Structures are given as structure tokens and as C-alpha cells.
């Protein structure tokens, strides 16, 4: 982290990647750490691949090339595999293991791979891999929609970013609508604890 830090967040349209990255950005702003990110806006329809590149510190390019990401956060497991080549060999990966099955698979035009052996293999490829039952945790917090914030808590818990837990929480308070704050704070905490207990 001497020079800079790159986080790649991936998932599926509708999972809340924008809010996820927004909170990291606000947390960095609170900590006075330079931050830039590149968001994907575009098609209104749901269900496409979505990614955000977030760079902290001295890095200026708001985009991450192959072999550059220090942390990969995936809200969907197949998307983690798709993005793996963007990681450094020493990267940390944090992922929710619950599949979001693409329409083409439902229509019988493609197959969704069998996950358990792939996730096992992933553990041997990167030095630190955190696998979360993201949906269970989000539902436990109060809504499956809080999956993005569960992963945010997990990222904070992993200690891979030079940002204090309190900065994440304060950023969350600023970004989330007050009516959903408690739910999101619970989701954050469940993700945070899940990673701590896995360490």
C-alpha cells in the first residue's frame, strides 16, 4: 500500500454495486485519502455484468488492468471467476457464493458451472479468499437486498484497505437513506464478523 491500492468490485445489475463503491469513496474522502473510481452506467435493463474500479492513494487511473487489482469483491461467484485475471497474484478475494443465474441459462442456451470445486480451487490460487453466504447474512440483517453492504462489512473486516471501520460506518450513514440505515448497519456488522471469524 506504499503507493496506491486498487479494488475491483463486480456483480450483476441491480445488486447495488454503485452504492457499495460510493461508500468506499466517501470513507476515503473522510479519511483524506485520494480516491477515484470508474462506474458503469448505461443500460437501464437488469441482469448484465456490472463492475466498478476503485483506486486509492497515489493511483490516478480510475480503471484496473489485468493483474493489477489488490482486492476483488464479487457480489456473485461466477463474476468473481470472470474477473480473476484482473487480480494480482497476491490479491485478496471476497465473494458472496450465492449464484444469480443468468437468463441465458434459464433459457437453456448456456450452463452455469458447478460451484463448489471451483471455489475450492480459487482458494488455492489466491492467498486470501473469503467466501460468504451473502444472501443468508443479508436476510438475517433484514433484507436480501442488503447483500452489497454485507460485502462492504466483509471488506472492512478483512483489513485490506487503509480505511478505519468508523470511516466506513460514517460513510454508510451519509450515503444510505435514513429509513434503511439500521438494516444496513446490521448487514455491515454481519459481513464484518463473518470475515473476522474466518480469519
Amino acid at each position, binding site marked *: 500500500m506504499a*503507493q496506491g491500492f486498487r479494488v475491483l468490485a463486480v456483480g*450483476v445489475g441491480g445488486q447495488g454495486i454503485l452504492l457499495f*463503491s*460510493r461508500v468506499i*469513496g*466517501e470513507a476515503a*474522502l473522510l479519511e483524506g485519502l*485520494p*480516491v*477515484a*473510481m*470508474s*462506474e*458503469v*452506467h*448505461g*443500460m*437501464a*435493463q*437488469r*441482469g*448484465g*455484468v456490472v463492475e466498478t474500479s476503485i483506486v486509492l492513494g*497515489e*493511483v*490516478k*487511473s*480510475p*480503471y*484496473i*488492468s*489485468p*493483474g*493489477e487489482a489488490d482486492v476483488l469483491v464479487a457480489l456473485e461467484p*461466477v463474476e468473481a*471467476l*470472470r474477473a*480473476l*485475471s*484482473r*487480480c*494480482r*497474484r497476491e*490479491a485478496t478475494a471476497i465473494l458472496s457464493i450465492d449464484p444469480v443465474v*443468468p*437468463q*441465458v*441459462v434459464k*433459457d437453456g*442456451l*448456456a*450452463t*452455469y*458451472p458447478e460451484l463448489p470445486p*471451483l471455489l475450492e*480451487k480459487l482458494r488455492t*490460487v*489466491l492467498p486470501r479468499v473469503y467466501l460468504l453466504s451473502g444472501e443468508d447474512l443479508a436476510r438475517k440483517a433484514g433484507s436480501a437486498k442488503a447483500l452489497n453492504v454485507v460485502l462492504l462489512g466483509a471488506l472492512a473486516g478483512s483489513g485490506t484497505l487503509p480505511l478505519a471501520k468508523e470511516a466506513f460506518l460514517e460513510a454508510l450513514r451519509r450515503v444510505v437513506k435514513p429509513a434503511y440505515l439500521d438494516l444496513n448497519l446490521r448487514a455491515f456488522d454481519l459481513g464484518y464478523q463473518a470475515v473476522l471469524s474466518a480469519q
Partner: protein
Amino acid sequence: MHPLLSAKEGERRLLLGNEAIVRGALEAGVRVGAAYPGTPSSEIGNHLFTLSRELPGLYFEFSINEKVAMEVAAAAAAAGLRSLTCMKHVGLNVAADPFLTLAYVGVKAGMVVVTADDPSCHSSQNEQDNRYYARLSGVPMLEPATPEEARAMTLYAFELSERLELPVLLRTTTRVSHARSVVTCGKLADYFRSEKGRFEKDPGRWIPVPAVARKRHRVLLERMREAEELANRSPWNRMEKRGPVGIAASGVSVNYVLDAVRELGLSDRVSLLLLGFTHPFPRRLAAEFLSGVERCLVVEELEPYLEEALKVVAAEEGLSTRILGKAEGYLPRYHEFHPGLVKEALARAAEIEYSPPETPDTSWIPELPPRPPTLCPGCPHRETYRVVKEVLRELGEEENTVYPTDIGCYTLGLLPPLKMADYLLCMGSSAGSACGFSVATDQRIVAFIGDSTFFHAGIPPLINALYQGHRFTLVVLDNDTTAMTGHQPVPSQELRPEPLKEKPVISIAKFCEGLGIPTVEINPYKKKEAAEAIRPLLSSGKLGVIVSKAPCVLYRAKFKG
């Protein structure tokens, strides 16, 4: 209060490039905005639309297309009010006609034209490089690299425009418009006054009949000379001399260059020419830069705009500096760049060893299922396609039919199992190309167009079809909104936000009936009735319009909130 208004002077905010442009325009006191949406420019219009409800001194409209938006903004600036229009790159093709002559007649108050280009076609049908529009028209151009520059340059663009009495082109790309980073806000203009402008008549200036146009062209060329001098001295054009290897860059590439120089450990060995004010090209500055380096790598996405300008300067000055760019194979002329690509090019230019970072083993990953964008569950477009398909199948015409299509969510009718999209060029081309297919083939023709696209560019070709006697069915997918770009209003809209309730509802069916074209309106969810209603039109094959009316499900959900 809108978040772009609540930020105080000096406050640091995390803003999207497009939001930063809006903030800059508010600091400049923009009074009139007009735009047609298009990714990656859309957030600019969306914010100005919302802000115009809060600020008595700000008018904004979603115009029917970019040409009209350009004309609205031009007239406002001629009448002394600062104005802004924004569009995606291809939008400037539509607005090019007024834009090129606007450069002759010029403006009184500042006018900024934002063009948001889309290298890699993230959400576009081509990746044209609109920097050539600056060259073609003669107007000054600024290219921000970051959201902070986007804010500050927008503010400056208004001043520059007023000083030169020319519109200014602010050119972004997807990775600038949709980058988010820290912006230090400036002071907002006073929006609680709303006095009108006043147009001073001056036919010798504002009416470019040939005699006036010839004179104004010379005025434009003089202004360009003045602008070039400003570009030579502009703080947006920075030169750092540190060694015999030079790099020239503009726009988002500046970031990639700065990272590459630092990460390759070349900080004290390479000279940099980082350009933000790129038209007119700052030739004197470039000559000074080139005379201090042996070779110069040019880092710019898409066309060799800077590269060729630098080569001209080198030739004019008799310099032997080698310019290394696209022609020399250092960087590609297509798609957006990424940091790794720039690092590799720089290493090659600086003649140092470089191997790209090692990536994790991915050989064990099986083929992964793709996630192409698809129509949402319950989308009315799907239902319309199904009814039309069913009736054509009944008629035995499904395979014999050509389906010209248009741009919007419904372009996805291209995918199986629908496969009802065969030909597309640009907005409005469904109806225009249907005219051509109708004379060139004996095939049946059923064309599809969205409501927003119909108003934007579908009406002239429909009138052409009627007048020329072309034969096709035009299906208008009236989903109550411009869905693709984030649900902006359309004139036929029925579910309307409060401030638009006063405006008339313009019915597409009534419009077509008024022209005397056989027209039916259907509800695509009522399959049986809809099939009955459209059968006569589809079986005749003559010119006819089917208006399929049902709101976009996402828009309806958002509207009902």
C-alpha cells in the same frame, strides 16, 4: 435541496464527472439548458432538469433531439443568457448542422456544448472521435481528465466563450463522465434573480446569407488565432521538462500516463506535455516541447488527433524529433485504453525492460455463462414483439419479413427467441431504411421504433413514406418514457412528473391518423384483441402504423415510487 446546490464554496465532494460539469455550470451561472439524453452524457441533463425546478433563474428542457437542443441553447446565448447543451458523441452528428454555422454567427453570452464520447462503444453504435468536430467547426475545445478538471473547465469554458464570442466544445469520454472522485466546489452563482435576456437585432451578423457568411468566416479565423494564443499560454496546457523522452497526452489518458511514469520509475527522466485546451492546437507550446526531446510518445484514445498536429508542428519547425503514436504502432486507434496498455507503450518508447504484471492461473476456469443485457421480466416490448410475430406466422410471412429496427431497449428484440431486428444505423433509421427496403425488395417490411426515437427522428421518414408511397408497417413501441437512457420524459407520456403536468400530451396515434395513415393503437398485454387489431395492417403490407401503448415496468415502478 439538490446535493449539487448544498455544497458550499471550498467544500470537497465526491462527484461523478457529469455532476462536476453541472456544478461548474452552476458556478458559471448557466441560465438556459437544453439537451436530448444519451449515455454517457445523460446525468448532466437529468440533474439540470431536477435543478430547474428548484432554481427560478434556471430553465432546462429535454428537447426533442440534439439539433433542437443546440438551437435552443444558441438562441439563448445570442440573447445574452449563458447556456449549455450536452449530448453523446453521435448526438453531435444530429446537431452538426446548426453547430457548424453557429461557429460563424457566434454568441453573446457564454455557451458550452458538451460532447461525451464513448471509446469502446460501452453504450453506442460507434466510437467516433468528436475532437474532429472542433477542427471542422473551428470552435475552441477543452478536454478534462478528471471530475475536478471537468468542474473547473466548465466554469472557464463560459468565460472563454464570452471572450471569443464563440461556443466552446467540452469533450469528455465515458471514463471521465462516469469517473467519480473528489471535487472542490467553487462559489455558486446567484439563481434567485431571473431577469430575461434581450436579443439585439443585427442581420449583418445573425443572418448568414452568403455575403454575411463570407465575412463571418474571416471573423471566425481571426478568433481562432486569438484562441490559439490563449491555448499556448493556458494553465490547462502543462509542460514538464525532465528528459529526452517526451510524452504528450490529453483527456483520461493523462491519468494513465502519470501512473505509468511513476510505476515505471521514470519520473525524473521523461518530459510531459499534458494538454487540456486542445483546439486550436497550441503550436508554439508544442514546438517548444518537441525541440527539447528526442522522441515523443503520443497517448490519446481513438484518432491520432494530437499525433498529427504534433507531426505538423515538427515539420513546420524542421525538428527531427520522432513522434511515436498510432501510425508507428505504439498504441491502437480503436477502443479505450487501460493503464497496462499505456505502461507497455511507454516502456517501449523509453527503451526499458517491462513485463506486464503476472496474473493468477485461470486455466482451470470453465467457459462461463454470458450475461447479455435482456429485456426486463414483464417488459411490454417483449409482448409487442410476440403479438406481431404470431400474426406474421399466421400469415405465413414471419420468415419473409425484414425487420428494420431502431435504438432503445427494444433493440434487444434482436436476441433469440424473438430475432426481430435486422437492420440499424442510427436513431430514426428504422423508418428511413424501411422506405429503402420497400423499393429495393419484394419482402414484407415491419419496422420497430420507440416513442422517444419516433419524436427524435422518426417523423420526417414517416412523412417521406407517405408522400413517396412506400409500403411497410411501423410499430411504435410507446412505453411512456425514454427507458434506455434512464427514463427521461417524452411528449406522449401519460405518467408525468408534477412540473410536466401542464404540458400537452401529444398522441402518436392521433398524429399518424392526422396524416391519413391507417393507424391502430393496441395494449400488447391483451394478446387476442391486439392480434385482431393489427392483422388487417400486417396482411395488407401497405403503409400503416401500430402504436403499442404500455408503460415500461421499471418506469412505472419508479413513478409509483
